[in-house]
């Protein structure tokens, strides 16, 4: 699938491929013209991706080819063993977790999981977790604390699931408890938004010593679509809503609401998933070392201080 602004780039790419094929077939020397078009392509890409609107960034964060949580975990971790269930109700397929290794260091991975085709998307409930998903995540975090494993959470959700059973089983309570208890975890906690970071559903696994966002992701209190429907009373103002919400990685870093942005390959993580995963692996590895240099009490104190300082008021 192609996004609107990806089309000219792909057109140019296929033209280059065609010319190369023609050159080889007929033994022509088209090197100069090909080089010229390739230069144009680089320029076009840089231009396009440096001028993306906030809405276009939201579209990129939802690109159907984008790597999801398990794609990253399986690439960056050896010996990954997935763990299931909240020990209460059931196993939530929209929230995954397990123990793996990064460069020989054991890590607890937790994250929202989306599906790639229709069947998988339904199976993963579109990445919208139920209360048991948040309780499963908390169970794994407490286990990580017990065995002294750093925690890495990968955030990619359009929101916590707004269904009847979710309400019956206490969606609000599950998220609230996670938020509160994550502040007191004695092990290092790293949270990375890899796609969509929608509201409480994201925050429920996003309290950490380091909170980071990939370059083309969004994180806010509501999706642009829902914001449009509530404030403009119509679904048609999602672009304006995205602008107003200032929900991109750059915005969130500027406001001091996240700690760091992780650059993506030009055009997005889906253009080169392997190099994205390698980058992520290095960032996680380095951050764990950095956080392990502090004591548990220091980390907890700083974690609380950081989030306590968030907000702007007139005294």
């Amino acid at each position, binding site marked *: 699938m192609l996004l609107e602004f990806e089309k000219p780039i792909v057109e140019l790419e296929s033209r280059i491929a065609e010319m190369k094929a023609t050159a080889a077939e007929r033994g022509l020397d088209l090197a100069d013209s090909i080089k010229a078009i390739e230069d144009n392509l680089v320029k076009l890409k840089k231009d396009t991706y440096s001028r993306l609107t906030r809405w276009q960034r939201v579209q990129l964060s939802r690109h159907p080819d984008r790597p999801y949580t398990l794609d990253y975990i399986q690439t960056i971790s050896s010996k990954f063993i997935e763990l299931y269930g909240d020990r209460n109700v059931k196993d939530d397929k929209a929230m995954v977790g397990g123990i793996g290794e990064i460069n020989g260091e054991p890590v607890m991975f937790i994250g929202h999981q989306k599906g790639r085709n229709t069947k998988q998307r339904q199976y993963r409930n579109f990445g919208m977790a139920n209360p048991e998903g948040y309780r499963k995540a908390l169970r794994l975090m407490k286990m990580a604390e017990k065995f002294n494993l750093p925690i890495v959470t990968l955030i990619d959700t359009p929101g*916590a*699931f*707004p*269904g*009847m059973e*979710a*309400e*019956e*089983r*206490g*969606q*609000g*309570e599950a*998220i*609230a*408890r996670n*938020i*509160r*208890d994550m*502040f*007191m975890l004695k092990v290092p906690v790293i949270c990375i938004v890899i796609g969509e970071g929608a*509201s*409480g559903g994201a*925050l*429920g696994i996003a*309290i950490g010593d380091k909170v980071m966002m990939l370059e083309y992701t969004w*994180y*806010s*209190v*509501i999706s642009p679509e829902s*914001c449009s429907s*509530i*404030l*403009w009373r119509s679904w048609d103002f999602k672009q*304006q*809503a995205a602008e*107003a*919400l*200032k*929900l991109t990685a750059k*915005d*969130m870093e500027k*406001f001091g*609401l996240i700690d760091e942005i992780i650059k993506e390959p030009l055009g997005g993580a889906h253009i080169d998933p392997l190099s994205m995963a390698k980058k992520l692996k290095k960032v996680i590895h380095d951050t764990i070392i950095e956080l392990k240099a502090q004591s548990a009490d220091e980390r907890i104190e700083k*974690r*609380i201080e950081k*989030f*306590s300082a*968030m*907000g*702007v*008021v*007139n*005294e």
Partner: protein
Amino acid sequence: MAWFNRAEKKGVTTPTELKREAPDGLWYKCAECKTVILTKAHQDNAYTCPTCNYHEKIGSKEYFELLFDNNEFTELDATLTSADPLEFTDTKPYPDRVKASIKKTGLNDAVRSGYGKVNGAYLVVACMDFSFIGGSMGSVVGEKIARAIDFARLHQIPFMMISKSGGARMMEAGYSLMQMAKTSAKLALLAEAKVPYISLLTDPTTGGVTASYAMLGDFNIAEPKSLIGFAGPRVIRETIGKDLPDGFQSAEFVLEHGFLDFIVDRKELKDKVADLLSMITKHLTVQGI
């Protein structure tokens, strides 16, 4: 042309503004059962209907008056007002919305906090006002609640939160979201200090407020028939494509599913809170007041 004209003005000539049975605000009509009673009688009944027990939606002024002995309390952080860090505009600029709300309600934002005595024992109370932009939680709400919790911890006084909110305030976007984190962090510290926290959920309590401090009480209690949930009923209806059963997300429903300790009639609120706290605060000594 009229068939006939009145030759001279006779009979009743009361001007419209005097055509009323009683002065404004003397009577209260129940929104549920339409019973009409004297406003004063309604007020003396803790703003509940004597016929059907409907709990009228009230604000911080009324809750403080119901809870604190002789309505005596010291307000905390009363002057905090909203900034506009995002320069947010939807159909109108956010600062205009805030100004209009301040003017309409006489409040500075959607929460007020204070401390005073309840049946003789100190209590810190933070209470939301739904009349201020739907009781939505932005930086001011989060900050005032955070400071009230800090005050409670520092002075070893129990904390009570009265929630009434549609959730996080969209116009402060990311900042609003992080107020859920900030307030929950403070509650984690309060819990560690073994200072009790009572969360009273009133009609309505939804969204980010439910998914943070409202559900984190040592005691989660609610007023009868309050709407309590994470997602609002409209969103759930749209998601499942069906109408919701009667009583879904009511306080009684939430109690039945195990997320509330009890439901409290507003007329008994003060005594019940005081009795409960008197049994679990023997380890605390109020500091520095």
